[in-house]
């Protein structure tokens, strides 16, 4: 993660100085305006604004219970929002099933990946959208074409597999994640929602997945990257939204926020400061050694939370 290339970074920053609309001038693919969701009398999400542009990675960060899952469930059609608006291509929508969201080009790669471990890679790739040939009574799977296409698509995403017949379960976690992403990209996703794709992965495998996220962005997809790891988010993100207790605590473009600030927001930001003051008053705690607030101007410590 420390192999930084400053030139590349500035290139990214220049391309998107304000984190605003994409260079093509196209509007956001998906936009949330004051969206919220209540389950009975529990308000899981409230007043969230979010915009997903083509060729941009929007990172949604937050601790457990911050409302990340609720947010993606609204966008992916598993749940309906109870306040505000969800717009796709500028038109308000209300999805009843994931299929409707899929039809609009919004594909979600869930944590469990929606794959079947015992089935071969190519069958998993086309599951639910199989290619067939022949007239009805003898309509059959076009196995050769499916295998060829799956292989091509996986290679385009940089995944090289020797044997597409091997059960998906024999692949590593990162590879499986990548197959799921490649599948979503192939089936016409314009917006890719990734639900904590790096949560259960090791350092190297996380790198693999982040590479595919970047590859998906380069293909012009809008990516929503849900994570609780600010380091992973900062490596690929163009825009960062931090959720906290169901509301948006931070919404900033890459140029407006540093990794330290992001980490600090993730870790509780303002709350941590208050805690620090309390500890100071209580005495006995070496407050100077604690991670500082972003405006303190001193190098902030890096909480290890979330690093896989």
């Amino acid at each position, binding site marked *: *993660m*420390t192999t*930084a*290339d*400053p030139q*590349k*970074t500035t*290139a*990214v920053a220049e391309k998107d100085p304000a984190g605003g609309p994409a260079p093509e001038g196209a509007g956001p693919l998906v936009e949330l305006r004051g969206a919220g969701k209540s389950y009975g009398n529990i308000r899981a999400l409230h007043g969230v604004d979010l915009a997903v542009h083509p060729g941009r990675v929007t990172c949604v960060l937050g601790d457990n219970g911050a409302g990340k899952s609720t947010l993606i469930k609204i966008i992916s059609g598993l749940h309906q929002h109870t306040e505000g608006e969800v717009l796709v291509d500028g038109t308000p929508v209300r999805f009843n099933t994931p*299929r409707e969201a*899929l039809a609009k080009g919004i594909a979600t790669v*869930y944590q*469990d*990946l*929606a*794959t*079947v*471990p*015992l*089935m071969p890679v190519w*069958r998993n790739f*086309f*599951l*639910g*959208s*199989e290619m*067939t040939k022949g007239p009805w009574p003898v*309509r*059959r*799977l076009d*196995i050769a074409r499916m295998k060829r296409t799956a*292989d*091509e698509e996986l*290679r385009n*995403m*940089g*995944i*090289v597999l*020797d*044997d597409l017949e*091997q*059960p998906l379960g*024999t692949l590593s976690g990162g590879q499986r994640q990548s197959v799921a992403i490649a599948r979503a990209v192939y089936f016409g996703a314009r917006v890719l929602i990734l639900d904590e794709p790096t949560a259960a992965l090791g350092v190297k495998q996380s*790198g693999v997945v*982040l*590479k595919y996220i*970047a*590859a998906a*962005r*380069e293909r012009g997809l809008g990516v929503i990257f849900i994570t609780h790891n600010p*380091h992973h988010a*900062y*490596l*690929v*993100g163009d825009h960062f939204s931090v959720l906290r207790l169901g509301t948006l605590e931070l919404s900033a473009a*890459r140029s407006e926020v*540093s*990794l*330290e600030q992001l980490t600090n927001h993730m870790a509780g930001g303002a709350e941590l400061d208050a805690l620090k003051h309390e500890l100071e008053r209580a005495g006995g705690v070496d407050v100077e050694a604690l991670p500082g607030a972003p405006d303190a101007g001193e*190098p902030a410590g890096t909480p290890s939370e979330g690093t896989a």
Partner: protein
Amino acid sequence: MDVTQQAAPAADTPPASGTGQRDGRTRQRSLALRLLARPEVGVFLGAVAVFVFFLVQAPTVRQGSSMATVLYQASTIGIMALPVALLMIGGEFDLSAGVAVISSALTAAMISFQLTMNVWVGVLVALVLSLAVGAFNGWMMVRTGLPSFLVTLGTFLGLQGVNLAVTKLVTGNVATDDISDMDGFDQAKSVFSSSFHLGDVQVKITVVWWLVFAALATWVLLRTKYGNWIFAVGGNKDSARAVGVPVTFTKISLFMLVGFGAWFVGMHQLFAFNTVQSGEGVGQELIYIAAAVIGGCLLTGGYGSAIGPVFGAFMFGMVSQGIVFAGWNPDWFKAFLGVMLLGATLINLWVRQSATRR
């Protein structure tokens, strides 16, 4: 502000592309190992072993007519083992499969005889009833989310009682009346229970049906969308639903397929014996399930084949008849079966583990 952790836009390092390039981390496994990884190979070897064993032990088995008997025995189990195996690959059980056979046969017999109609009417009504029982099992399971074990245990007990009670109510007896002189009987018998000569050996038609159904099931399982869905709903139901597989349709139709199998075997029994004993069929469901498991189907679903249960059913037929041909006490059959079931399952497990190990 010294930011050391900056983004390295990874997409600038182009993903590997171009065909022919290999990962290089996996070795091509030997042909033997790849063969062993197939679900039906273990049971095939087992079937060959049992066959050779009885070939040596019981000289009568070497005659063509004995072989025909073995195959006939196997076919009556095998025709039902096929849909039961597909259902098992789809992740579910059907404990009512055994008594459903008798329910179907009873329905056809009683409708035809009591209403004095062409037997084909009874046959069709029985088909509708069998499919309905299957649909009910599937629908109940999908709607309530109860395990299929419980739902079909209920159907099993229910049908068992209904079989006895309704038969007694309608015929005043525990068996149905002989329908061999009814209209259309000969025609129906030629479909469900005739035999033909192959050289000088008389072969039952069910053997042909069995192999035709097995070929069909194999094709559907491996070469069609529906087959893909069967593996998917058995392997991971939620994932399958998330990618757009019609899980409810697949599960219910699999139960109805078992209903179809029960109907077919029921019709065979009816037209082979002209009458049906209402208390039969109990325990058969476990034989079908055992044949499917011996045939390499995973109890938890998502893995298996249609050809495996063919060999599984053959093993059953071979052992049950082989014991008779060898002149042993047939009481040993079940004991033999138990050993065979455990042995086959262990061999399957071992084979799969050693063959799929990376």
